[in-house]
């Protein structure tokens, strides 16, 4: 008896090369296989040689996420971290490394920066997505070496039929979310259009009239196109527009009124845990005297308007036995912001160009290509006193690069090896070489090992690298001449059979030259406030492991149990600037039967060493009553649930509750803090900033 056809690994990879998305990375989308015996295939395994977690559109729906940061939160090794209680900068944190080390790609094209990810991650449209691929570890992306912690690739879906999808959601705190997606499929291609409106009120959990959850109004719009054959090219692209307004601190949406309200005390500092003995101000810990607050709504408010336009497109063409690919990305990002009376307006332009080819050389698949990245920033602003500090963080980075990658499978595909190297010539930080090496060992059909070692580099920028370092300062002193370098080693062992799947991974991350912003410095001559921009002298090491087990209990019920444990080694304050736990645990149940689907998940967050992360030794933190902040945060659970019922083929209704047991940090400890001299800040964050959130809505699909 003979097997009629067998798809060898090399043939398969060659086939997948026509995916049109990130050929260099073998990130897979809809493909047309023309490798002799097969025509028309769609791969369902993602970039097998690199450990990648793929979240499909259905999974995004089941969690009730309305924005990217929510969609990625509460997963082993992946979380969302809020870094400011009144502006709610949200970062996607991989392996518990700083969020700026996570690189976001759209269809394999890196077109986000530290400026655009500060508030922009919330503004990435989830409409029309096929999936989100998350890869942890430096060097996971051949075309994004700055992904020191890993990459998040958003893959758009090529519609195969006409579609109209409407999702209308209402929720607590004035939440309103409208998603519209339309697609027109035609012979040889498709067009798509999506629109999203999302708004949420400011939320004040401790009644001091200062929000912990920032209010926002966001409008996103985009169009996409897919052409299957234009002169032999398979082309896809999309253009997106973002318009967002957010304000935190003061409640409401009277942006101009808040900016104009610059004196007096509209807040109640006596509210909340360890509140001040009086409403008008707080205790100065060093003296025990009181300090009145007199800066009005403006002095405790942050208002950020974001205006973004971006375009990404790629084209793939058969070339010899392999293929070639061209990709282009463009983004124009504007931020008009008001930070506690300081004004900061940033204007950024980014370009990305790529040309690459993937060819078989004997039994080895070789990918080579060139990239060019351009990123600039021009800012104008004033400090809180009104003194101009225009252009303090301006930069222009130009980075041409070349890359070479070889893939080979041994022992009839039992062992697959991938090695690559990038060489980039940064106009400020010079030449940087970043290699990576991956091995996939298929022990048997169910069990395999992945080993990866890689290096990434990142050119630091002064915008929001740490805290609000660019603000309320007269100039930035740049004592930094080295790129941040990350070395990563990881191993993952995974098992997948019909009802049971598990994956365990170990990660070692070592980051050298971590950028540091010290916004508390003063000019030795003038005495003016200045910001020092330096590199850490010692490397930061983060080592962790996680285990996820999924088991189908019944034909309709699946359970997932997972845990992660991380250790942090750092000695310089400001390197790992925000608290993070050593341990998290996850429990999830997914139910699906006929028209009913349900999801219940609990996320346990272990204690965080606040004294270490927030450097109490050199800068102790106090509550408004003059007492010390907690050295360790308490552990806590957050439980979410969501159910959906399909009324008929077109209509569905859903109802969900996030944070069912209403746990919020402000019930235990305020996110606000003062130092010994009584100076206030908004960054004492270790817990959830919003309590129970109830939402529901309807979906329509045609």
């Amino acid at each position: 008896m003979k097997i009629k056809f067998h798809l060898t690994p090399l043939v398969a990879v060659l086939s997948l090369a026509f995916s049109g998305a990130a050929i260099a990375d073998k990130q897979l989308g809809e493909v047309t296989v023309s490798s002799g015996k097969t025509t028309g295939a769609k791969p369902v395994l993602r970039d097998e040689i690199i450990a990648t977690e793929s979240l499909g559109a259905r999974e995004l729906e089941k969690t009730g996420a309305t924005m990217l940061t929510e969609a990625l939160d509460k997963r082993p090794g992946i979380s969302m971290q809020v870094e400011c209680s009144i502006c709610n900068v949200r970062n996607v944190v991989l392996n518990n490394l700083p969020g700026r080390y996570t690189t976001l790609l759209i269809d394999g094209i890196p077109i986000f920066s530290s400026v655009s990810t500060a508030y922009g991650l919330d503004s990435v449209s989830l409409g029309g997505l096929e999936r989100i691929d998350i890869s942890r570890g430096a060097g996971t992306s051949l075309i994004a070496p700055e992904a020191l912690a890993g990459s998040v690739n958003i893959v758009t879906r090529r519609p195969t039929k006409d579609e109209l999808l409407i999702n209308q959601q209402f929720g607590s705190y004035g939440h309103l979310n409208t998603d519209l997606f339309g697609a027109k499929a035609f012979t040889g291609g498709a067009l798509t259009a999506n629109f999203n409106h999302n708004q949420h009120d400011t939320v004040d959990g401790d009644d001091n009239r200062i929000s912990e959850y920032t209010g926002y109004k966001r409008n996103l719009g985009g169009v996409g196109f897919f052409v299957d054959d234009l002169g032999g090219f398979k082309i896809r692209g999309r253009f997106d527009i973002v318009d967002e307004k957010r304000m935190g601190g003061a409640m409401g949406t009277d942006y101009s009124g808040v900016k104009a309200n610059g004196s007096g005390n509209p807040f109640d500092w006596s509210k909340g845990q360890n509140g001040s003995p009086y409403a008008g101000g707080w205790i100065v810990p060093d003296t025990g005297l009181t300090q009145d607050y007199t800066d009005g709504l403006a002095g405790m408010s942050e208002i950020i308007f974001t205006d973004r336009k971006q375009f990404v497109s790629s084209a793939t063409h058969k070339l010899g036995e392999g293929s070639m690919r061209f990709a282009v990305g463009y983004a124009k990002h504007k931020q008009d912001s008001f930070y506690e009376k300081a004004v900061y307006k940033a204007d950024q332009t980014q370009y990305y160009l790529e040309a690459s080819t993937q060819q078989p050389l004997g039994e080895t698949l070789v990918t080579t290509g060139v990239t060019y990245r351009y990123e600039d920033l021009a800012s104008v602003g004033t400090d809180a006193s009104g003194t101009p500090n225009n252009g303090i963080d301006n930069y222009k980075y130009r980075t041409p690069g070349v890359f070479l990658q070889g893939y080979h499978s041994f022992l009839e595909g039992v062992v697959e090896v991938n090695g690559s190297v990038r060489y980039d010539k940064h106009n400020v930080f010079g030449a940087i070489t970043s290699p990576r090496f991956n091995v996939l060992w298929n022990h048997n059909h169910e069990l395999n090992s992945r080993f990866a070692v890689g290096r990434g580099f990142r050119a630091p920028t002064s915008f929001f690298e740490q805290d609000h370092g660019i603000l309320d300062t007269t100039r930035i002193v740049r004592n930094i001449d080295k790129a941040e370098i990350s070395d990563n080693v990881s191993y993952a062992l995974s098992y997948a059979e019909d009802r049971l799947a598990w994956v365990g991974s170990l990660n070692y991350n070592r980051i050298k030259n971590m950028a540091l912003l010290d916004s508390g410095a003063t000019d030795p001559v003038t005495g003016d406030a200045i910001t020092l921009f330096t590199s850490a002298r010692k490397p930061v090491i983060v080592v962790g492991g996680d285990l996820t087990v999924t088991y189908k209990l019944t034909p309709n019920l699946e359970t997932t149990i997972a845990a992660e444990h991380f250790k942090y080694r750092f000695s310089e304050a400001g390197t790992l600037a925000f608290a993070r736990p050593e341990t998290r645990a996850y429990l999830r149940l997914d139910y699906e039967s006929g028209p009913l689907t349900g999801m219940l998940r609990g996320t346990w967050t272990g204690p965080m060493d606040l004294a270490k992360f927030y450097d109490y030794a050199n800068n102790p933190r106090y509550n408004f009553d003059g007492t010390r902040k907690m050295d360790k945060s308490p552990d806590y659970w957050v439980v979410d649930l969501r159910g959906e019922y399909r009324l008929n083929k077109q209509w569905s209704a859903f109802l969900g509750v996030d944070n069912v047991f209403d746990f919020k940090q402000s019930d235990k400890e305020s996110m606000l803090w003062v130092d010994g001299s009584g100076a206030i800040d908004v960054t004492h964050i270790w817990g959830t900033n919003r309590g129970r959130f109830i939402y529901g809505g309807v979906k329509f699909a045609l």
Partner: protein
Amino acid sequence: MTLFDKTSLRSSLALWAGLLACAAVNAENQPNSALDFELSDGHRFVQLSRLPAQTTVINFWRADCPPCLREMPALAALARSGKVRVITIALQKPAETLGAPSAIQAALAPPMHVLHGPGEPRGLLARFGNRVGALPHTLVLDDQRRPCAQRTGEITSDWLDHAVTNCSKAKTT
């Protein structure tokens, strides 16, 4: 040695132990052995080895895979002919396959057996000869559940007839 150093050392050792473990496990490659699965049809788990012995066509598909949809009528026609058992395994949740056109929903009606694959289908696909996970993927199994033909990519009625015929011949010989 600090506690952290010890932890790092332990982690590194565990990492390398894992790598060494790789060498201790032999890869399986037995294309002619009887295949089996245990998958949900939405109401119960179906185990292939517990079904009556019969020539069986197994097709892996997704609703967003055009060639998968194009070949579905041929599979349905074969199922209706009664010559063989046809099992489709969707690598999507039931709610996701509802997005398939109504003609496909009709094709999936009995006597077709409709099952849904696991969320992580790598092991299942590899076991059924599709380690790279390309779809559609179709196998013909003899009555001993051994593969006698398989194809990754769109199939035709001719290929299906030919494969089933050859499989039946192999059984008689």
